[in-house]
């Protein structure tokens, strides 16, 4: 057993900087821990959530200050009071992932600690000032920034990491904090409508406004059949045109899916659309505009008129 308070203090002074905190409210925390550990400091976690969440973070060898939310109380209700406790530890660096509750806790802690706050972060290194690399313009450029301590970071949305192996590390202590909640209560939840087939599909063929008439949806469906795929679409196809059910559109406000293959047909590749397919293993696209944005994010692209390429593709698949 080594992750006691004493041990933490020793390692804290030995490291290049002390007092690195991760702020956790959901399962995405391993990415925050990875970036926090790479910064060189000794990590402590503030966790708001059910006990298994606090235990999982502690199992990674991190001492945890844990707040258990009351029934029907969102994690955010504890932000102001938890922030005061985190700020009292004078952290040099605070890290969270981008989920709504996690970053609300982080924003409160950053302000209480008088920290700067940089979003979209990919990595941080220490030195006389912190050096941060972050994604700007939806990842089309990477900016380098420097900032003094204390500094708070929100990770880029697609930063993900596996849970660190719990073997060989002594678990951190879990200290339950008595933190009062703000006036905030869940008044009701309307269950999500039944998921469409695209959510679990291995292959999804999705089409956008490049398909010019409702009758032509049959062409996309034939391609989907040849691929054994489910059919999805961009938001305007479902919302404005009503050619597919709203449960089939992909993107920020639609479905978030992780198929092995996502084939986008006549879709321009708006950032809001692509947010829904970050988890796809292979992204392929057919578009008649060689400059279409989708080609900048696709693994494979076919330039051409979908009315010619799709039939040729069906033929090639049947060979």
């Amino acid at each position, binding site marked *: 057993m080594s992750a006691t308070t004493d041990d933490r203090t020793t390692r804290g002074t030995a490291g290049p900087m002390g007092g690195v905190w991760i702020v956790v409210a959901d399962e995405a925390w391993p990415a925050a821990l990875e970036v926090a550990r790479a910064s060189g400091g000794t990590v402590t976690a503030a966790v708001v959530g059910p006990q298994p969440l606090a235990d999982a973070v502690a199992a990674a060898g991190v001492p945890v200050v844990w707040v258990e939310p009351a029934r029907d109380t*969102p994690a*955010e209700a504890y*932000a*102001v009071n938890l*922030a005061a406790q985190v700020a009292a530890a004078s952290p040099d660096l605070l890290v969270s992932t981008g989920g*709504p509750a996690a*970053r*609300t806790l*982080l*924003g*409160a*802690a*950053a*302000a209480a600690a008088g920290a*700067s*706050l*940089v*979003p979209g972060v990919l990595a941080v290194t220490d030195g006389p000032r912190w050096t941060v690399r972050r*994604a*700007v*313009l939806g*990842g089309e*450029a*990477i*900016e380098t920034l*420097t900032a003094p301590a204390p500094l*708070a970071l*929100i990770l880029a*949305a697609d930063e993900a990491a596996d849970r660190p192996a719990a073997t060989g590390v002594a678990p951190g202590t879990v200290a339950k904090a008595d933190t009062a909640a703000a*006036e*905030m*209560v869940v*008044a009701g*939840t*309307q269950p*999500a409508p039944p998921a469409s087939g695209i959510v679990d599909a291995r*292959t999804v063929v999705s089409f956008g406004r490049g398909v010019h008439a409702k009758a032509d949806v049959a062409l996309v469906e034939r391609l989907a059949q040849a691929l054994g795929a489910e059919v999805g679409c961009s*938001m305007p196809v479902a*919302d404005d045109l009503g050619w597919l059910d709203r449960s089939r559109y992909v993107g*920020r406000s639609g479905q978030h899916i992780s198929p*092995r*293959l996502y084939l986008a047909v006549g879709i321009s590749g708006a950032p809001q659309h692509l*947010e829904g397919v970050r988890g796809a293993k*292979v992204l*392929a696209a057919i578009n008649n505009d060689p400059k279409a944005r989708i080609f*900048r*994010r696709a*693994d*494979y*692209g*076919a*330039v*051409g008129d979908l009315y*010619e*390429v799709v*039939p*040729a593709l069906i*033929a*090639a*698949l049947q060979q």
Partner: protein
Amino acid sequence: MRVVIVYKWARDPGAAAVRADGSVDWRGAKMAAGEDDPAALAAAQRIATASGGELVGLTLGSGDASWALARGVQTACSVTDAPALADNAATAAIIAAAVRHIGDVDVVVIGDAKQDPGVAVAVAGHLRWPALVAVTSATAEDGQVLATRRTPEGTTTVRLGTPVVVGVAAEADVDRVPGMKELLAARKRPLTTLTLAQVGATVGDVESRGSELPPPRATHVFEGSPEQVAGQLVAALRAEGVL
């Protein structure tokens, strides 16, 4: 309730171009409201109306602040010398200082922007108010705010005491372009200009060292006859093992 709608009037990041050396070219980018701002304004209007309250616009920077005034907001303030900052907490500190300057505010509604996910939460932090972000719509009832958002479980409604910060994330483009009459009316509505010194805010100490291109993606784009590109695409997908 006294509701402040915070909106952005800045160069549209969607229209910025990245040059071959990784630097960002903003010349082609027009000034626009933030992507989430129309949805935030709609929520703020509903909260103000449902509570029989008033709505005040607040923006940063020297640009045209009439966006909200032309969309039904009666008065607005602008902190004209506030620069665009990479530090979301510094931006938030300016907004929080301006909210205190406006005074007696019950609810701050602000776009919960993808590019700047730290602003709404740090505004709350600086005010020491609770916050709920990723909200898609909101209204008021019995002196409280009812905010709705999508969670993995479904659509959840949260009841919030005041004062509170509500961060609204747009689900679609809901902007309503104002007519000539509204644009003319906007010119007559009062716009108070403030400075950083007046609200008592500073701009922080985060420095940019420039930007670069991300590591190149291995994108294969096939061009040629429909049969050629279809054949190449199928071969590539077979090689990937995803067919």
